């Protein structure tokens, strides 16, 4: 964990000295951030829970002896037992297995969708912030247009038109949620552009590409990273909502959202808690832990809270 975070935050462009052995005392920004993050108990609990969820999803084939889609019509809607720890669903599939595999899908969709929106948002935002003028106007008006649609209504419509599938779900979430990142990055770039060290980098002959990616982006990284975690939580929620409505990930591929689908019926909701409680709890706990990590990052990265 420690090395993971220090890798994540270590300056990727740093050329450390190879001569001399007196550089171990250098306090890198990564070390400072990691130190502050580690001190935050709640954020650490969040990251441990998140890590457990990820490990469970990765180890799904090891943790269960059932096949993901194996139907057993003699064992329909069985309550939890020693044979099926989380019970079975309407087709007699083992729900523990499906919840584990569903975690893979849900977390992946969340990750891919938020990465997609990050890429779009960061590129658009940095272009708008750095070049300004007409390009800024065009990009900001596009952003305004995307924002002015109610998100879920547009997502449902788009899913209905494009047809429900995993990839469309990722695409829809990614294409509809980049606006926040775009505005954030633009704002950061507008202020970083005015900094003297950017002028200084220009004066030693750095190209525009180098200015944007090597000099400005690392300075804007902190808020981008924080917003990325929070957006990933939202993406997981949206995926669950779409799948629950039957417009996201399609059975037999499980996701936490579509495992919840039977809970649309009142009898299931009242009598068969094992069908909806575990996936609901998993969605809740994953979103909560991601948000806790995001909050912890915000506290660790905000220089104003330094103490």
């Amino acid at each position, binding site marked *: 964990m420690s090395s993971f975070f220090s890798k994540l935050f270590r*300056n990727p*462009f*740093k*050329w*450390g*000295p*190879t*001569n*001399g052995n*007196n*550089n171990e*005392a*250098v*306090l*890198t*920004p990564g070390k400072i951030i990691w130190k502050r993050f580690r001190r935050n108990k709640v954020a650490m609990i969040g990251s441990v829970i998140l890590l457990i969820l990820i490990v469970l999803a990765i180890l799904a084939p090891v943790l269960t002896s059932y096949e993901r889609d194996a139907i057993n019509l003699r064992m329909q809607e069985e309550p939890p037992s020693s044979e099926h720890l989380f019970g079975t669903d309407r087709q007699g599939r083992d729900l523990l297995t499906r919840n584990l595999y569903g975690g893979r899908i849900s977390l992946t969709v969340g990750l891919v969708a938020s990465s997609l929106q990050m890429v779009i948002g960061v590129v658009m935002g940095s272009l708008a912030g750095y070049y*300004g*003028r007409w390009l800024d106007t065009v990009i900001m008006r596009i952003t305004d247009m995307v924002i002015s649609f109610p998100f879920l209504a547009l997502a449902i419509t788009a899913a209905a038109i494009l047809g429900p599938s995993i990839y469309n779900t990722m695409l829809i979430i990614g294409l509809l949620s980049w606006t926040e990142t775009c505005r954030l990055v633009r704002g950061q770039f507008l202020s970083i552009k005015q*900094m*003297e*060290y*950017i*002028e*200084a*980098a*220009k*004066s*030693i*002959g*750095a*190209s525009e590409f180098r200015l944007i990616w090597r*000099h400005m982006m*690392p*300075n804007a*990284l902190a808020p981008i990273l924080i917003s990325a975690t929070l957006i990933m939580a939202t993406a997981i929620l949206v995926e669950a909502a779409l799948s629950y409505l039957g417009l996201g990930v399609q059975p037999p591929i499980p996701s936490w959202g579509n495992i919840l689908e039977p809970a649309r019926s009142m009898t299931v909701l009242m009598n068969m808690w094992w069908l909806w409680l575990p996936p609901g709890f998993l969605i809740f706990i994953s979103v909560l832990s991601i948000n806790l990590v995001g909050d912890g990052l915000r506290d660790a990265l905000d220089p104003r809270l330094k103490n």
Partner: protein
Amino acid sequence: MSELLQVKNLYTKFHTEDGVVPAVNGISFNLKRGESLGIVGESGCGKSVACLSIMRLIGHPGQVNAEIMQLEETDLFSLSEKKMRHIRGNEMAFIFQEPMTSLNPVFTIGFQLQEAIRLHQGLNKQDSQDKSIEMLKIVGIPRAEKVFSEYPHALSGGMRQRAMIAMALSCEPKILFADEPTTALDVTIQAQILELMRDLKERVNTSIVFISHDLGVISEMVDRVIVMYCGMIVEDTNIRTLIKNPKHPYTVGLINSKPRIDVDIDKLNSIPGAVPNPLNMPKGCPYHPRCNQVMDICREKIPEKERINEGHGVTCWLFSEQGGKIKS
């Protein structure tokens, strides 16, 4: 050709929402190899903008125009952006006023030092590293190997300015623009930095263009001085003449407002009035509303530069034949 830098009729305008702001109004000067030139003037007179214009670092909404802007044989004005990038940092370097904000906080000193070296000299990793550690030693930073891998926040202002100087001189530029490099530092550090720059100038044989509003600093550092007011050069001469025998009423005012150690006075002298709003320049000579020797023609026409001596130019009607005639 002995001239290193030639600038003729440089104009820089900023197109703002309130109108066009003329920051530099047709300045001309030459710089020889190894010479150090001072530019003095109060805040907002265009001294920094003039130097940034020469390095073509003025972006939107600024607009630069010049009849001649030449570095040796290279026409800086028509050069492509790509070739210009090669000149920046390599042949012309810039030291900024504020060392606390001129270093990127997310990179180590070493990374930033190596950047110019690697961009321009094509050295490999090991060589550029050796070179930058050597540069840090040259500018007098102790424990250079350690500072190399430090982040800027671990360094004091004076140390950062030394690092900036190391960075600017790492490619041995022909011209070094120093934009008030010691204003943000306290006096003892200031003296050290000036000493360092004088020393390095000899060693690297760089021409320095030294921007300052501090005549004391200027007189220690340079051979020749340009006095600017409202984007125009009002007087240019060597430093001794400027201190002993200033001609332009503005320069006289500036010299008189220097506190003197040998005279006991209660109140410091100052030039009455304030710099005019660049959006609303007075007609005629821009200095006439504050000038104590103002004549009728000053209110009507902008004076031309007059050579009153070898290497001493003044832009004032008092010293031109036409103005003199009207006066007499």
